[in-house]
């Protein structure tokens, strides 16, 4: 397993990573989620050995890798723009790591065929990389990274440049593939939909630190900070006054922030009054936006409601979660 | 300081000479014309000298310079019949026949030729006029030699083992002094010249491509380790004039029995529309005004016997009394074969 201990990275005056602790268990898919500029890519590069940390250590099992060169760590990485070797064919790209490792021609051919079948590109061996579509290129890049059997595979927003439908399909394929191989992986994305679809555990990053790390269900249920809550898609964040009041009533004892999870909030025959200001049909349900006391809230309903309708809101107690405003923790 | 003295001496001499000079008759009807003089890169005269010509005749002279002597002649031959200039100066006796064969010139016998020794007038038809001459000789570095080892006396001495590894020459295929020295040995030894060069080679002669390399690279003067070099009879005065720091006398001397005479000619180019003016220029080039300007500018000797020499030349320049010469026609006819044989013997 991978373990990072208090890893810090600076670029000039910029503190890009600030004392990051992280573990990835064997066979686990960890998703790093965060906005642009929060240091996700830098973290990956540091783990890969492409950046040197100013402080902190990187361990694999019990071996300290901090001083080990990138080509000796046995980690693989996939970039957003695939970075295929333009002067080589598909087969030669996939076989590159095997060639370096000294595999014979026959062995290489066989492994390349296996991998191409795994990523759904049977028969693509002789193609030139210039002629591939975006999705095909990413799959070749995946096959290439998997070929030398890396201890850990890192994927840096690999689907970001693809269109939505393709992305959706590929995320599923990717998840199945990684699980099937039992491959330890770190997957970086800014899209929380992807994150939740793939992750065994999610680590939410903000400003060079890991703000919240845990299983998706846990993180969703208890984001702990406002920043994390927003980055995973929560929107029903209410501020409490000194007595703990907000537009939905008295939800706490003192001033602060509170989250009312949208999966807990529901329409009810009675409760807090609200007015419907938006309704979007999505995958068989209605995503509603309602307005209460000047505040907008999200929830989901099975039955259609009209714009401007008055409705009542209710929620279970455990749907209310306190948040801290800043990212200290 | 010495340079300044030489300059003033020259100026003084020129003034004196000017006063005594008999004026040449000026042809009619050429005033206001402009003619072009094609020369090689080593040509120069003082400011005012060409102006004197314009003052006398009313003809303006424009200068055109076309590379070194060989390049200039090649250019002239390429443009024969439609020349770029009116007068050509700087064809020497080694290239003369080639230029004559290409029919470059209009014959003209200048009245001033009476002042020029007949030995210099190589062309009986006066297609070209001798303007200056010099000798290509082996120069030696004075300090290297003394009573126990005197400087070599003749060409024979150069193959003496006492002087092994001391001589540097230039490739006659690519260097004018190199060619001149080869011709000197041919003039001396006739058919035996090939054996002579084989002996020189055994005596460890060094060969360079051009004069600069030999003089500045191999010769002691330029920091090398050889005390004998093929150069010009006018090199010692130049060493004296341009010494830094100044010296009492030149550090080099000339082996007078190794000299080959080089004569430079001027001629009116065929096809020129300004024949009369061109001829007037030839006359002027033989005048004392021009001739006395030559030594310190081009480091050769004036052809005209009435011209006075500058002090540095009087003191330090030596002319061979009986230098080697070969007829231009012979030179042109055999030159390629000689240089090919030379290359075989010396370089391969």
């Amino acid at each position, binding site marked *: 397993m991978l373990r990072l201990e208090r890893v810090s990275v600076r670029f000039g005056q910029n503190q890009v990573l600030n004392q990051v602790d992280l573990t990835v268990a064997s066979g686990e898919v960890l998703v790093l989620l965060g906005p642009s500029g929060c240091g996700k890519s830098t973290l990956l590069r540091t783990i890969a050995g492409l950046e040197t940390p100013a402080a902190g250590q990187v361990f694999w099992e019990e071996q300290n890798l901090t001083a080990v060169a990138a*080509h*000796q760590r046995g980690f693989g990485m996939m970039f957003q723009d695939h970075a295929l070797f333009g002067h080589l064919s598909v087969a030669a790209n996939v076989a590159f790591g095997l060639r370096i490792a000294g595999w014979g021609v026959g062995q290489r051919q066989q492994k390349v065929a296996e991998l191409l079948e795994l990523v759904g590109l049977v028969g693509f061996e002789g193609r030139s990389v210039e002629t591939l579509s975006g999705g095909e290129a990413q799959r070749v890049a995946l096959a290439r*990274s998997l070929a030398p059997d890396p201890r850990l595979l890192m994927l840096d927003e690999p689907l970001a440049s693809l269109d939505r439908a393709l992305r959706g399909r590929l995320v599923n394929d990717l998840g199945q593939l990684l699980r099937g191989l039992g491959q330890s992986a770190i997957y970086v994305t800014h899209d929380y939909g992807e994150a939740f679809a793939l992750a065994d555990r999610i680590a939410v990053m903000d400003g060079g630190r890991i703000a919240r790390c845990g299983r998706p269900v846990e993180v969703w249920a208890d984001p702990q900070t406002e920043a994390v809550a927003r980055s995973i898609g929560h929107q029903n964040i209410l501020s409490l006054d000194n007595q703990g009041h907000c537009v939905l009533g008295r939800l706490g004892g003192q001033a602060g922030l509170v989250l009312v999870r949208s999966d807990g909030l529901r329409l009810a025959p009675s409760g807090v009054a609200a007015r419907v200001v938006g309704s979007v049909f999505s995958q068989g349900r209605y995503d509603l936006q309602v307005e209460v006391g000047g505040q907008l809230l999200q929830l989901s309903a099975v039955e259609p409601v009209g714009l401007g309708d008055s409705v009542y809101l209710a929620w279970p107690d455990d749907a209310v979660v306190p948040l801290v405003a800043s990212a200290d923790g | 300081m010495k340079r300044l003295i030489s300059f003033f001496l020259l100026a003084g001499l020129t003034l004196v000479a000017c006063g005594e000079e008999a004026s040449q008759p000026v042809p009619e009807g050429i005033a206001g014309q402009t003619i072009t003089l094609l020369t090689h890169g080593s040509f*120069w005269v003082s400011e005012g000298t060409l102006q004197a010509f314009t003052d006398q005749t009313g003809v303006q002279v424009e200068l055109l310079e076309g590379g070194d002597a060989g390049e200039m002649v090649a250019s002239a031959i*390429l443009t024969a019949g439609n020349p770029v200039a009116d007068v050509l100066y700087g064809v020497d006796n080694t290239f003369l026949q080639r230029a004559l064969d290409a029919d470059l010139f209009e014959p003209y016998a200048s009245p001033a030729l009476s002042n020029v020794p007949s030995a210099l007038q190589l062309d009986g038809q006066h297609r070209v006029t001798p303007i200056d001459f010099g000798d290509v000789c082996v120069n030696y570095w004075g300090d290297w030699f003394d009573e126990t080892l005197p400087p070599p006396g003749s060409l024979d001495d150069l193959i003496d083992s006492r002087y092994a590894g001391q001589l540097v020459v230039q490739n006659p*295929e690519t260097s004018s002094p190199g060619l001149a020295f080869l011709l000197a040995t041919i003039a001396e030894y006739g058919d035996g010249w090939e054996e002579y060069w084989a002996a020189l080679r055994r005596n460890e002669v060094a*060969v360079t491509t051009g004069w600069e390399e030999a*003089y500045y690279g191999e010769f002691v003067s330029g920091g090398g380790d050889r005390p004998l070099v093929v150069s010009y009879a006018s*090199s010692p005065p130049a060493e004296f004039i341009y010494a*830094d720091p100044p010296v009492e006398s030149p550090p080099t001397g000339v082996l007078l029995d190794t000299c080959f005479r080089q004569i430079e000619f001027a001629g009116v180019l065929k096809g020129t529309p300004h024949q009369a003016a061109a001829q007037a220029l030839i006359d002027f080039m033989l005048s004392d005004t021009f001739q006395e300007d030559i030594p310190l500018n081009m480091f050769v000797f004036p052809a005209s016997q009435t011209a006075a020499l500058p002090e540095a030349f009087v003191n330090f320049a030596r002319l061979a009394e009986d230098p080697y010469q070969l007829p231009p026609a012979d030179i042109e006819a055999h030159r390629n074969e000689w240089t090919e044989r030379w290359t075989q013997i010396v370089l391969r």
Partner: protein
Amino acid sequence: MTLRRLAWPVVVLVPVAFLGIFFLWPVTNILVKGFVGGRLWELLHEAVFWRVLWFTVWQAAASTALALVLALPGAHLLARFHFRGRSLLRALATVPFVMPTVVVAGAFIALFEQFGLNDGAFRMRHTVWALLAAHVFFNLAIVLRTVGSYWEGLDGRVEEQARLLGARPGQVFLRVTLPRLAPAVASAASVVFLFCFTSFGVILLLGGPTRATLETEIWRHAVWRGDMASASALAVVQLGAVMSLVLVSNFLQRRRGGREQTRLDSRPMPSRRLLGANLGLLLVALGLPVLVLVERSLATGNGYSFDNYRALTVRVTLLPVSALTALGNSVLFAVVATALAVLVGGFASLVVVYGRRSLSHFFDFGLMLPLGVSAVTLGFGMLVALDAPPMDFRSWRWLVPVAHALIGIPFVLRTVVPTLRRIDPKVRESAALLGASPFQVGRLVDFPLAGRALAVGAAFAFAVSIGEFGATSFLPRHPDRLTAPLALFRLLGTPGDLLRGQAMALAVLLMVLTGLAVLVIEGRPSGRGVVRGDF
């Protein structure tokens, strides 16, 4: 993509006319003489000829290989790292390019003496190594800047991938980087090879009398043996070889990859040791001969002083003008030559990028030829061909800068064309849709984007002109228009320490002038304005 307007015929005709009148017509005039009396056929049967041809090819190839090997670390440095003094290093690397061969040869000879490489059995001079060393010295700049500039534009993450797949740094370079650099390397190698193939002064002075190349043989036959037929026949062979080379090189370059991303933000400071080692190598290769020259220029009979420099302001007896005036003439000619090269080269670049395929190929090919044609051929050709109205240019004072411009144009072409090619067509299309005419698109889109590339090409053209192209020594000119390199030849042509010291001082001034000019012309490269041309 096409600029079909009244302006377009002009853009096409100007380079065609320029090349036709000042290059094709003169050269053809000389080359036909080679076919007279079947001289060319005879030549091909002579053993000497094949020996000479072999040596010419061999020394050019060896020089090119050495230059590539020595310059690649430096190119890496310039491409991947940001450090203070970067633009200074680039300017410094351009300086040797400029120096007249006679001065470089002199510097190397002095250098060999300093290090005792000239005594007894260890004679460096006249060995092939001296020749190769001088060639490398001259041409480092071309490789450094062509390859360095192209390398800068390559995405470094491909190399990172290779590292992550287990490749050691050496393997990364050989298997990934080098193949990707191939177009730039081919471009640089072809130019260096051409220069070395037609090298003249270096061969004569450092190669010694036993070594001959096609170029020196052409000169020897034309000037010394008066044998224009043989000289022309040799020139035909030379031109044939050059043409094949240009065709091959152009083909290799067309395979250049498409648009690559560049991450200008991720440029780390190199490790001190790496930086030091690379810089050290470059400085030794470039700086030693220069230092030797400077030392020689300051040495006078009375110890070290600036006397030699002071003497340059006065007219020495042997020179028609003062050395400073000669420098001024050189600068004047260089300015005119650069302007011509920029104009004609700029138009030609437009044709190569936007014109019809056949026209584009023709220009790309034809305008490179002057680099590889013998100076004798061109110089004498101009003399013979341009002798009658309406083309009676042979005594024209500006013929010299024209000849210089012929050499400068390939440099402009090589910088501007790749940059123009990389302009996203969508940008131009947007401009058109916003109402810009093709001419305005050229002015408002192409010109600003390619402007910096043009500046770099201009800097090289300037440098080449100052260093004087050999053909111009065969053109008749007025002595008042003596240029600095020719003045140098004169000063070195007469015995006397004074004159030699002055020659060295003039050479140093020439170098400083060029370095400054290159810095000024190129300006300080801003972070974003990376020139992705050839140089």
